[in-house]
């Protein structure tokens, strides 16, 4: 890095002026999202004096906040002082935020459509610590943003340099592991869980329906009723079937669109410190993870994905609770090659170690059938019976479904124990596998319910800084042995978990 590239950091500087535009757009976006029901009401209902009065107030508030967001641009400065990045901001009260270099965890870029038109990026700096504070700069020219990032990360490396990073520094170049082609993207979209989307649609559909019913009143109900009657004057079952198929098609299309918007032109790179993902159609998101910050990795697959030999990979990074979700790197549409590369980086010894396979107790099947199947169905049936109604057969079918699912769940649950870490594999229709190295664990819990105590079974939880891993219903003896072994490994480990 040439010295003069970084001169701008030594004195307070403003963001790129595009920031005003970005702030304003963000502001209007929020208004639209928050206030669209009001807008609709205004369109539907004839305006009266009270409504006009309210709308003046709303406009006044909107104008003031717009002014505030413009002023906030002129009040925003960033610079480096000593070993800290300083951000000054605040419209009425000035605030000064100090970000010590050694506390910086990751520096991410994000670009929405405006950023891309003007070739600027927004910079997000994540720091460690339970407060979960994040710092962001709304718009910066690409050169400056990159200069800042390289500067911050190089500063950070000087403060904590350990063996992992030294090894990593040998390979200086960024290595493209995966780039999703449009065809790959469609494969990813097609193999998503469409039923989840269907549930979402159903929930929001009823939400909307109730909402519109509230504001427009009986008109809507009558309208919908007559429409339904006109289209399906046949029986209910054919109506339900049509509705289900319609919903399925809509969910399918929506997940496809969502996948394309989110993962368009996804690139998965191996950098010298870890991994990086860049993706997005309108908003280009870039996220990176340092190798030593990755606590555990998951990969998911389902029968459709298995047909295309696809996995979706999750690299979970250490972060404060509030932002753990955001800190995971998610790579849909990975193949064996990428999965292998990630496993090799996270757990280099994996191939050389001996993994011993174990399963969970079959008694869990009965427990699950009891708690998810028999008890709820029993309660519903008792209530219906008390109200003098018939006993439903579909309810009994539910118990059968739960039984079949529980059977598959137990059969497919497996964990593989080795000297340095553990691999888990579970799932009913799809499959989720997890890889966890022992020294990443923060604490261990062995617990037993009443039934488990009687049967000498236990559930063991391993807590890490990026989520926990649970093995249910294993022999108590095994749980204790695992617990003692893992604790010994953690306590005698010389390695920092991060």
């Amino acid at each position, binding site marked *: 890095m040439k010295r003069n590239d970084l001169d701008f950091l030594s004195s307070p500087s403003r963001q790129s002026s595009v920031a005003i535009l970005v702030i304003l757009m963000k502001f209007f976006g929020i208004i639209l999202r928050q206030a669209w029901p009001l807008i609709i009401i205004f369109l539907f209902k004839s305006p009266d004096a009270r409504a006009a009065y309210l709308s003046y107030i709303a406009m006044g508030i909107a104008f003031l906040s717009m002014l505030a967001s413009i002023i906030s641009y002129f009040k925003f400065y960033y610079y480096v002082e000593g070993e800290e990045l300083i951000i000054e901001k605040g419209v009425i009260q000035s605030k000064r935020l100090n970000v010590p270099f050694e506390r910086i965890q990751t520096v991410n870029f994000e670009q929405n459509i405006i950023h891309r038109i003007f070739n600027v990026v927004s910079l997000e700096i994540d720091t460690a610590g*339970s407060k979960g504070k994040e710092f962001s700069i709304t718009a910066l020219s690409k050169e400056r943003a990159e200069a800042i990032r390289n500067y911050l990360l190089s500063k950070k490396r000087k403060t904590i340099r350990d063996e992992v990073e030294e090894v990593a520094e040998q390979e200086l170049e960024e290595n493209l592991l995966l780039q999703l082609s449009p065809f790959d993207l469609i494969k990813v979209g097609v193999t998503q869980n469409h039923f989840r989307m269907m549930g979402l649609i159903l929930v929001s559909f009823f939400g909307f329906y109730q909402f519109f019913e509230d504001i427009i009143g009986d008109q809507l109900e009558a309208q919908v009723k007559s429409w339904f009657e006109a289209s399906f004057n046949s029986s209910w079952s054919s109506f339900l079937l049509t509705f289900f198929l319609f919903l399925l098609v809509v969910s399918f299309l929506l997940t496809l669109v969502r996948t394309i918007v989110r993962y368009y032109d996804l690139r998965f790179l191996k950098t010298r410190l870890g991994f990086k993902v860049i993706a997005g159609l309108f908003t280009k998101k870039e996220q990176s993870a340092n190798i030593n910050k990755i606590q555990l990795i998951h990969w998911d697959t389902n029968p459709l994905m298995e047909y295309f030999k696809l996995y979706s990979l999750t690299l979970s990074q*250490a972060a404060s*609770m509030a932002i*753990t979700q955001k800190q995971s790197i998610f790579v849909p549409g990975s193949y064996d090659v990428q999965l292998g590369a990630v496993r090799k980086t996270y757990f280099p010894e994996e191939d050389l170690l*001996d*993994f*011993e396979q174990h399963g969970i107790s079959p008694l869990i099947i009965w427990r699950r059938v009891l708690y998810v199947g028999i008890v709820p169905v029993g309660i519903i049936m008792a209530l219906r019976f008390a109200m003098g109604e018939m006993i439903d057969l579909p309810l009994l079918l539910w118990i059968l479904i739960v039984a079949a699912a529980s059977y598959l769940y137990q059969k497919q649950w497996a964990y593989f*124990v*080795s*000297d340095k870490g553990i691999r888990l594999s579970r799932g009913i229709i799809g499959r989720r596998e997890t890889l966890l190295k022992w020294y990443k*664990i*923060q*604490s*261990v*819990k*062995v*617990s*037993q*319910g*009443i039934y488990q*105590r009687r049967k000498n079974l236990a559930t063991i*939880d391993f*807590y*890490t*800084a990026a*989520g*926990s891993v649970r093995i249910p219903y294993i*022999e108590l*003896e*095994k749980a*204790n*042995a*695992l*617990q*003692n*072994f893992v*604790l*010994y490994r*953690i*306590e005698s*480990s*010389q*390695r*920092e*978990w*991060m």
Partner: protein
Amino acid sequence: MIFENLQLDLEDLPEVETVRYQKLAPAHLTIRLISTGLLYALLLIGMALVLTFGEDIAPELYYILPTIWLCLAGISFWLASASYKVKAYALRQKDIVYRKGVIIRSVTTIPFNRVQHCEIKQGPIARFFGLKTLALFTAGGQMSDLSIPGLLPREAEQLKDFIIKKTAEDRYEEE
């Protein structure tokens, strides 16, 4: 033998399951009973107000609500006294073990070299009885944090000092 592939003899490792636990101070049970009592007294007052001044109350409610109250209070008092017997901690050379739970019994172990922060707390009722709570935090999130109540002030201070010393030592060894 189980887990035969591991390079350590599992029988030689220190065992959590055979550790000798230290019970909490007896006054902790009193504190738990008092706070449970206060909660149910409040519920009783609320219920009485509703039943006396409420309008259109179904006649069955006059005996259903008190029965529910009695059952819940009974269960809660039983749980409070039973959980006192289970709650216990053990200090080992390199970690701290805490046992709790009547229905689901759990044993949580936090190695000292994973403790991020520890502090001593005291609630209003506990202050009256002079007992303190030691809270231990790890990077593993809320679920993995420990909170050991019912400690005598000196005991709590000693535990905290010991853990801080151990945490610092273990960190030092690593460097």
